[in-house]
């Protein structure tokens, strides 16, 4: 599903060059649930952003679902993002003046799905995350966990190949975190590929594979026995 070869990425900070990713080789098969771990500054978010086409790589190659991601201009990147990827952010990033339903329907708007169909699908995904009753509420009327579930529904709505979650539980208390992880596990159970960036050990252990990053290189890549979040809830 994801194939990354010899990936390098550096940022210019004034006169200094910050070499963030120093040769990453990394493959993800379909249906995997991978945790990317590392302390802050290890390059884990940068890696996720490159996978998410939110950022560009310097050298190396990146293939997503058999499509080589090269020569990305903004329009092309936007189309790929819309088609292949769903994002879940730490700070939810819901549009504050849109209702839960409208937020979920937004990726479908950019896929030019007709309004009626869009709303039906959005409601379907809201139901899936257990928030059908909150469809007409604004993000400001929802709790943190609910917001993240709306964001997950939104990420799912476009039916992407891969879900990318950047610290999905970073802004939530542990009970809510486990609820969100349970939801992500269920989504993975249905065969969706998931990439989760986290620095929390217990969250990482709920994935099927843990990749440890340190100073821009992968220092450990192991399969683990998934701990079901439902045990905690």
């Amino acid at each position, binding site marked *: 599903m994801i194939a990354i070869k010899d990936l390098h990425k550096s940022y210019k900070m004034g006169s200094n060059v910050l070499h963030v990713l120093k040769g990453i080789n990394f493959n993800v098969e379909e249906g995997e649930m991978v945790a990317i771990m590392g302390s802050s500054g290890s390059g884990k978010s940068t890696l996720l*952003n490159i996978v*998410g086409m*939110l*950022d*560009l790589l310097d050298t190396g190659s990146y293939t997503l679902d058999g499509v080589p991601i090269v020569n990305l201009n*903004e*329009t092309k990147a*936007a*189309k790929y*993002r*819309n*088609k292949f990827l769903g*994002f879940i*952010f730490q700070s939810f*990033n*819901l*549009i504050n*003046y*849109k209702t839960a339903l*409208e937020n979920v329907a*937004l*990726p479908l*708007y*950019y*896929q*030019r799905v*007709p*309004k009626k169909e869009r709303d039906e699908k959005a409601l379907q995904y809201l139901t899936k995350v257990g928030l059908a009753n909150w469809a007409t509420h604004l993000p400001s009327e929802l709790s943190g966990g609910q917001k993240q579930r709306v964001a997950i529904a*939104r990420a799912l709505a*476009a039916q992407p190949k891969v879900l990318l979650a950047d610290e999905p539980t970073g802004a939530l208390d542990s009970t809510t975190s486990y609820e969100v992880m349970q939801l992500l596990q269920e989504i993975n159970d249905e065969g969706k590929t998931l990439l989760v960036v986290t620095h929390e050990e217990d969250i990482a252990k709920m994935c099927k594979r843990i990749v440890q990053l340190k100073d821009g290189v992968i220092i450990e890549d192991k399969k683990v026995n998934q701990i079901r979040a439902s045990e905690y809830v």
Partner: protein
Amino acid sequence: MFSSDNWQEIFQTIKKNKLRTFLSGFTITLGLLIFITLLGLGNGLKNSFNQFFMDDATNTMFIFPGRTSMPYKGYNVNRTIQFKNDDLADIQKNFPFYLEYITPRIFRNGTVTFNNESNSYSYVGVSPAHQVSEKTIMMKGRYLNDLDVKEKTKYAVIGRLVEKDLFKDKSALGEHVIINNTAYKVIGVFQDEGGDNEERRIYVPYTTLQLIEKNTDDINQIVLAYKPELGYAGAMLFEEKLTKFLKEKHEIAPDDQSGVFVRNIADNMNDNQQLSGVLTLIVTFVGIGTLIAGVIGISNIMVFVIKERTKEIGVRKALGATPFSIITMILQESIFITLIAGYIGLFLGIFVLKMIGDKLEDYFILNPYIDLGTAITATIILILFGALAGYVPAKRAARIQPIVALRDE
């Protein structure tokens, strides 16, 4: 791009962000309101200036006959030139391109009597166009018309002060006055801003006067008006051609300066018009200044609006919005708002001018107005710049990496 789906998205954004919508709309409305009001007041100032200095029509020429000062084609010097009705007809026939209207004038003085009251007044034989050239204002009844000239009716139009002198408090309409032994029926009373002298006049059809005076076709003076669109230069050219024509017709030497005189009001008008031009310049300057202030205002608001939306743009991009769709969204929204707001501003401004009307006449502002073309151009300029002011930051916002936009707090 202009699907109803798109518009729904935009209407929603507008509805849910009332403050933002209000701010950008208000800037445009206010800018236009001020622009139209100021320009209108400036025009009002110009109007009262024109009224002060331009009592008579400004596009008028007076033609007087004189005496020749040179012998020419067998004629002696000192020959008196006499205009006749056929001069009127010839000018009309030869200068239709320049001529707006023409009227003869036959000046007479005489005793005018009504019942036991009598007094001496000047009375003038004219044709209907004379009303325009003198800007005579009818208080009651009517002015002379073409039929009166044709039928040589014994009708008279008398000045306000004539009526006051002879009729005291009674109305003169329909009464008969005796002017030099001939009875005329009063068909109208006029006023004239030219002063008391002009309001002590009596106008009668020139043909009637000619008939009574032994059926001659002599006339004293010719007053004519050229088409205003000729401008100053055109008027000068017309004057030159006309003088030449009349000299040829009356067989006056081409360089004889005293055979016929043409007095062109445009000559005196030129100075006044320059002052009026300065006023126009000031009004234009104020107008452009206001417009620039409006453009800067809307630009600031647009930059602010887009700054505020940076994160939203990032989210939209992460969800698959192309830069193009971001730019169109922002532009469509801003143009829609400025269009509505511009229309309101236009309407309000014109309404305010209408409300002011002649209420500020004491402050030398008369009939403030703005011509619709200027107002609409100003509206379009504001909308255009509003869109441009939105386009530049929108383009930048659409280009930044979504990750940068998302980091923006």
